[in-house]
């Protein structure tokens, strides 16, 4: 059964190989069409979305740098704010003491 099936398939392929497709008409003028498309793609250049994808690593680095910088600044601001608050508190305590409030 299997052998018969294999033989039939072989026979079918052998016959199919005998059918040469006539492609010369389809090939006509192909070089012209291809070169036109090539020029068109060269003029268009790289589409903007490809540039967007390509700049992802650059943007990541920039964002990383900015967030690090912001982090440093925040920690600096945090300590100075604490100082400002505590010095303000000390000042107001002193004023209250002197004024007797």
């Amino acid at each position: 059964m299997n052998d018969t099936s294999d033989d039939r398939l072989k026979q079918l392929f052998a016959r199919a190989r005998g059918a040469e497709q006539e492609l010369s008409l389809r090939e006509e003028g192909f070089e012209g069409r291809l070169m036109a498309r090539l020029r068109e793609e060269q003029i268009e250049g790289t589409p903007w979305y490809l540039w967007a994808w390509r700049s992802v690593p650059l943007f990541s680095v920039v964002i990383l740098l900015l967030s690090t910088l912001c982090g440093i600044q925040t920690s600096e601001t945090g300590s100075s704010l604490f100082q400002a608050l505590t010095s303000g508190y000390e000042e107001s305590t002193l004023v209250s003491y002197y004024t007797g409030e």
Partner: protein
Amino acid sequence: MPPEDDDAELVKSAAGGDDRAFTELVARHKRRVFRLAARFTRSEHELDDLCQEIFLKVYENLRQFRGDAPFEHWVSRIAVRTCYDALRKQRHDKRHLPLDELPFEPHDRRIDDQLAAAEARNVVMWGVAQLKAEERLVITLMELEEKSVKEIAGLTGWTEVNVKVRAWRARKALQRILEDADHERYIR
């Protein structure tokens, strides 16, 4: 000068931006590419588009051609891989005509032998179109293009064992498809 040497000169010029040299290369190798691509496409428009894709890839990669194998082998490899990519894109588009409605091309009708061959080709194409992309590629290269396992491995980048396994699976799947479709009346 042997054609390979000639090709190498043209490749060098084309890679340097000489469009005439590239056009000459296309003219030399388009027949082979068209013949292969026609095995996987369903219309003239698709065929032209696929062949253009293949030669665009050839153009983009010209500088990578090292010349350790003939240029035509290099082009064939690009062609096979581009056809495979196209087949993978087609996999969701599983619209198939019933076997009875397959079109026959007028130029195949000239004599009985040719008619039988065209009929067989259409039956094969109809059945093969329902296989998975890798099965379709391997069976076409092996049975219609008559490439050896080693050649197919070289063209696709698959191992020889992989090629054999995929070819076996493809044959079995095709047998099932054709048996289900009662193809026997088409094989006289």
